């Protein structure tokens, strides 16, 4: 395939060290090279036709410009052979591009047997990554060179998980599970974005992706479990506050800009008016209720937008959160 070898040599030409190329961030997964080379093949084909069209256009403008002594020369107003040629050749190239895109897409869609599974929850405006042993993080930690499958769901609106370095993207649609898989090739840190517009803080729904060196992922995961088990409740609560996405909407100081929920600072034990006109005392029961069934008792002045954490937090974790909020004073 002369076309694909042209694409590959272009890849080399544009490669700019570790940081990827002019066109791409560095390649972090096994499908990335295939995606990139298709990209460069299309670029080569497009550049060829584009330069041809513009060159011919400029040449005609110069050569046949209207000037004294030059007049229109007769030429046929159609030419079947020419027209067939310039339909069929681009047509064949299009078939080639389609086929390449299709084949790589099949690889992206078909995870190998026995992939390591991580649960992903997307919500306005944070990510939660849950590992098989129950550890929850809002960074995505990954083992090196092992197929990983993300099983994803959304709690509110459509989000989309996008890791540019891996060249993967998949929407998270509320009410169903979606899946994406990849196999990392290089340790390091990458970026993960939400690519489907999801409201106010869409552009900060970003997370880090950490691909561990060979053999370092399992120890890291174990250490996380131990740490969670050993923490005193209020500290575990603070960790969960960070990791479960509470931080996106609730402040723990007086600076509430950009937060859609009330601050936790100094609320414990206070009386608060509710949207339905009643009042409530912020005690253990109210906090627990707010975590499990957030829309049942919405505070006055706030929208019922908080997702439920029913089934996602264990009792010990809810207690830890209560302790944490308590520790923020009255």
């Amino acid at each position: 395939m002369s076309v694909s070898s042209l694409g590959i040599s272009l890849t080399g030409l544009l490669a700019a060290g570790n940081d990827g190329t002019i066109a791409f961030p560095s390649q972090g997964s096994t499908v990335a090279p295939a995606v990139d080379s298709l990209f460069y093949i299309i670029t080569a084909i497009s550049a060829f036709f584009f330069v041809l069209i513009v060159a011919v256009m400029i040449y005609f403008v110069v050569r046949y410009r209207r000037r004294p002594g030059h007049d229109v020369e007769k030429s046929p107003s159609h030419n079947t052979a020419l027209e067939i040629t310039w339909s069929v050749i681009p047509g064949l190239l299009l078939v080639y591009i389609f086929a390449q895109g299709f084949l790589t897409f099949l690889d992206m869609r078909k995870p190998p047997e026995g992939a390591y599974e991580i649960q992903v929850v997307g919500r306005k405006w944070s990510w939660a990554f849950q590992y098989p042993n129950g550890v929850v993080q809002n960074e995505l930690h990954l083992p090196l060179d092992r197929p990983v499958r993300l099983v994803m769901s959304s709690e509110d609106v459509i989000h989309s998980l996008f890791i540019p370095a891996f060249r993967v993207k998949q929407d998270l649609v509320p009410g169903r599970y979606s899946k994406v898989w990849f196999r990392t090739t290089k340790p390091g840190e990458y970026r993960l974005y939400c690519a489907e517009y999801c409201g106010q803080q869409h552009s900060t729904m970003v997370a880090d992706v950490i691909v561990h060196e060979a053999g370092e992922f399992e120890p890291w995961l174990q250490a996380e479990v131990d740490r969670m088990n050993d923490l005193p409740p209020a500290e575990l609560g603070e960790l969960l506050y960070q990791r479960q996405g509470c931080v996106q909407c609730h402040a723990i100081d007086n600076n509430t800009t950009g937060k859609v929920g009330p601050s936790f600072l100094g609320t414990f034990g206070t009386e608060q008016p509710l949207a339905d006109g009643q009042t409530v005392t912020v005690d253990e029961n109210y906090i627990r209720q707010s975590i499990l069934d957030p829309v049942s008792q919405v505070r006055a002045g706030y929208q019922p937008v908080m997702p439920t954490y029913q089934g996602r937090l264990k009792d010990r974790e809810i207690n830890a959160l209560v302790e944490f909020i308590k520790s923020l004073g009255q």
Partner: protein
Amino acid sequence: MSDNASRTATAHVHGHSEEDYLRCSHGWKSWAFTLDHKRIGVMYLIAILISFLLGGVMALVLRAELFTPDKLFLSEDMYNQMFTLHGAVMTFLFLIPSIPAALGNFMLPVMLGVKDVAFPRMNLASFYLWVFGAIFFLMAILLGGLDTGWTFYTPYSTTTNTAVIAASMGVFILGFSSIFTGLNFLVTINTMRPAGMTWFRMPLFLWSLYATSIIQVLATPVLGITGLLLIAERTLGIGIFDPARGGDPVLFQHFFWFYSHPAVYIMILPAMGVVSELVSTFSRKPIFGYRFIAYSSIAIALLGFLVWGHHMFVSGQSALAATVFSALTFTVSIPSAIKVFNWLATMYKGAISLETPMCYALAFIFLFGIGGLTGLYLGALATDVHLHDTYFVVAHFHYVMVGGTLIAFLGGLHYWWPKMFGRMYNEMWARIACLIVFVGFNATFFPQFVLGSRGMPRRYARYDTEFVYFHQFSTSGAMLLGCGLMLCAGVLIHSLLRGRKAPANPWGSSTLEWKCSSPPPHHNFDWPPVVSAPYQYDHIVYDPNHQGYVEVEDIPEEEDELTNAPVESHS
């Protein structure tokens, strides 16, 4: 028509027996209640230009905010509302009506050689529906803004507390405006062509309007109904799209793109029609492959209905569906590509002059080339997964819709300006404006391809610092583009006040609209025009006395044959 009698009374007098359409009657009522397609076209023109200004200012505000990665002066809420309204205003209020409703309304009957469209009252109604729809958009701004993106994806749009209902009502009403215009054009072209105006003697601009009208009539109702369903879901709480109520959020995307993909052809087909007119006129050559261009407009219109799923490759649709949509997507690109080759072949051995409209036509070929070719990356499944919902897509559709539709609209506006208003503009300054627009446009949008493939998602108010360089480049380009457009507006306004009087045929064009005086008389033609094949330039020569082109009568027999234009009638 009731005024038929009065028309025949004056029509037989050779010469300017009627005042032109701008001066034949006076007072605001003579405009507000006019049934003259030309006046309606002018009112549309003013209305869409105001929308364009509004959308353009919002675009510059957005670009200015993106000059820095963190907050410069817009809160996230304001940013989100700004890009939503920019997109919605530009698409629904400017791009969709720009060429068909403004230029098309004015030119279609004149180019056809008839005195008005089939249903003049419906034509006026379509304009007022547009105004009414636009008012709903303004209301949406006042009633707490709109922050859903112009795509209104559910369930975000059913849960946000911004003015989704007012905006969808606006879209619904604008849809009717679009359907009315489409129906009117279809009936006019089908039933009113005068003797001699066979299908294959129709200028290509009319073919493109015909194809566009088919889409408007068939696709727009889907959008209207989708808007109503969205309103029903918000107000009555029935579960159509909301998964919490048993609905399907992806269903909305199918409905939406079933209209909105064809809608992009509502924007681009008329643009291609304009460019066909320009390339032929300014090369003084019959258009190469006339029939192909005519048929391919229809083919694009019909194939355009089959590819909506390519906006949803990562939405969770099945791999099979994605594959079928990808394959179909590529089929649409062939007729578009061939049109470009046809324009080039038309220039071959021509006598090309670079008047402003031709400069826009060349800019169109350049920019549309980039827009179309970058569609290949998005049509191919593997590359789309990476590029979907990034700035690459933003750059792609701006190249096609701004580089394509807007540039062709400006080309057409400069081309028909002398006809519409009877004044010439300053050629040199108009060309300079065109050049600035061209450079500014590329500086704005080309860097966005790089941003996108490097992973910058679209619709982000804040971004990672690694992208700052390309964003600043793009913002600078946008400011230049803004200056170019302002200059362009200045040149045209100046011509209204100071311009030299336009001759009937300033460019040496061969289609019928150039046979009546500039501006046209109230009934378009003082006498019934003689229809012959379009794009015959042998008998049109420059007359220094008129500072314009006139027809000479004696055409040598054999030369007529040599030009070999599509004159056979098959209607």
